[in-house]
């Protein structure tokens, strides 16, 4: 049982872009860190610990926390811990920061996720994360396996490419309401998605997430410190992590078993019986449009095979019973080390009512999800109240 209740009291994000030529790595991270500190009105010296993370192979600078934990965050003479877990890096950062405050070890923790993805290249970097003997020779980064997942999902349930394209349309037009999102396309259509180049059957260019550069920072505080700095925090109600087999292909990949397991645990701990009824908004990790269809099923939002149905019925659209990705999701913004943390930040923004044009009305509980590695999932449930 956690010792303390933990809330998000400050949030910072950079405007995500394809290439940030104007800043180097610590300067880019500083933008988000400073924004979070100013948002929480906390002095840099009052932060107790820094949790920072990215995936080093994208920038080619190993041990990056050595210089950006100190030059971009107030980490001088303080504990600085690095977390790197692939696509789940952002949510692992959030969960690690949460544990550090919930345990009572620290009172105020700054969590930063970042990536300067286009310094190296996403696909190339991702390949180096995998087994050199068995997987690297043929692996095509993340998009190859994601295409295989889409293909097996489509074959199992008879899902069409048009159905998947509707997800991109929903998310990238949602992104037009999010000033931080990378790809904002208010007028995007299904035809536009369907006419884009086939990247890896059945994934077309616009079925896939972009490669973005940027940083995201959140500040956690325990109950006592939270009262001092804000009367509108977002409380962490539950967290759950589920990792999977080393070779993601050890079982057939049309759904996401780790998401089913992690979400069940997170729901139980947060007192959620029916996710569609009990949650008000969900920020899920969808690297491709097909992923959202399949993984909303794994998260328990609907029966297997019905991910497209709840989209068509408007349930996951803005204005529906459970809007999914009002921020635009990963399909609109993907700085890998930060992406899952942006989901947590956006869920917190929804709970705090600070979403502006992308705000979902009356948010009491929000879900955030991270995905990555060999099909791992992490879930954080945030809410207006600390206790379930």
């Amino acid at each position: 049982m956690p010792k303390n209740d933990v809330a998000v009291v400050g949030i910072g994000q950079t405007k995500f872009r394809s290439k940030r030529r104007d800043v180097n790595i610590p300067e880019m991270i500083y933008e988000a860190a400073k924004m979070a500190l100013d948002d929480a009105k906390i002095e840099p010296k009052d932060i107790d610990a820094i949790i920072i993370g990215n995936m080093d192979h994208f920038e080619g600078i190993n041990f990056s926390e050595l210089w950006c934990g100190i030059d971009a965050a107030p980490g001088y003479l303080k504990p600085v811990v690095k977390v790197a877990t692939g696509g789940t890096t952002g949510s692992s950062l959030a969960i690690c920061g949460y544990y550090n405050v919930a345990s009572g070890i620290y009172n105020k923790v700054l969590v930063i996720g970042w990536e300067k993805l286009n310094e190296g290249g996403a696909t190339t970097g991702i390949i180096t994360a995998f087994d050199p003997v068995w997987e690297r020779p043929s692996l095509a980064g993340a998009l190859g396996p994601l295409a295989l997942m889409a293909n097996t999902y489509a074959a199992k349930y008879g899902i069409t490419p048009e159905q998947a394209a509707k997800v991109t349309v929903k998310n990238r037009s949602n992104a037009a309401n999010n000033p931080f999102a990378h790809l904002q396309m208010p007028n995007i259509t299904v035809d536009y998605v369907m006419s884009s180049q086939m990247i890896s059957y059945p994934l077309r260019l616009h079925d896939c997430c972009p490669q973005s550069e940027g940083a995201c920072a959140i500040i956690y505080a325990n109950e006592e410190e939270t009262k001092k700095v804000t009367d509108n925090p977002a409380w962490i109600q539950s967290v759950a992590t589920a990792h999977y087999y080393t070779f993601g292909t050890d079982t057939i990949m049309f759904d996401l078993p780790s998401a089913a397991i992690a979400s069940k645990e997170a729901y139980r701990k947060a007192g959620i019986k029916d996710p569609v009824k009990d949650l008000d908004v969900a920020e899920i990790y969808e690297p491709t449009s097909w992923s959202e269809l399949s993984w909303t099923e794994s998260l328990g939002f609907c029966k297997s095979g019905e991910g497209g149905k709840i989209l068509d019925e408007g349930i996951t659209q803005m204005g529906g019973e459970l809007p999914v990705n009002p921020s635009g999701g990963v399909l609109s913004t993907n700085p890998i080390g930060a992406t899952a943390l942006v989901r947590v930040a956006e869920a917190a923004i929804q709970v705090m009512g600070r979403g502006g044009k992308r705000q979902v009305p009356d948010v009491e509980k929000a879900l955030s999800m991270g995905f990555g590695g060999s099909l791992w999932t992490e879930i954080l449930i945030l809410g207006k109240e600390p206790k379930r």
Partner: protein
Amino acid sequence: MSKRKDKEKVFEIKWKTDLPYRYSIGKLAVKFFEELKNNKKILGSKCPKCGKVHFPPRGVCADCLVEMTLDDMVDLSPRGTLAGFTVVNYPFVDPNTGGMRPFPYGYAIFKLDGADTYTMHFLDEIDHTKMRVGQRVEAVFKEERQGNIDDIPYFRIIKEEE
């Protein structure tokens, strides 16, 4: 957009990492590649507790946390069934070579007869309309084998007539 680019300072340093590694592959992999090179055989490893047959063979069963040894290695068929397929059609630098990997190439997920886990590997077909979940596939072996995964450069779709 281009006006902004001129104003932004772009000070870039380019380099190419080139790091050599010698990865220890483990006893089961050593045996696997020996049998592949010498006898054109494909081996998996079977968990002594739950009986799950793993391909690629590995030292520990993740479900049982029980060790699998050389005695637990079993023969697998070079044939399998296609569970999913794609045609990779985008340019990227291959970190194994530092150059672009040639594309398009067929890439599939399939289960070898006798194995309980799936595998991803190259497929000898770049027209996705010719592929179907459920097709039978077969490993294609090189005549001159070196004892690495490239000895099976790809799998091929077994035509209906065969």
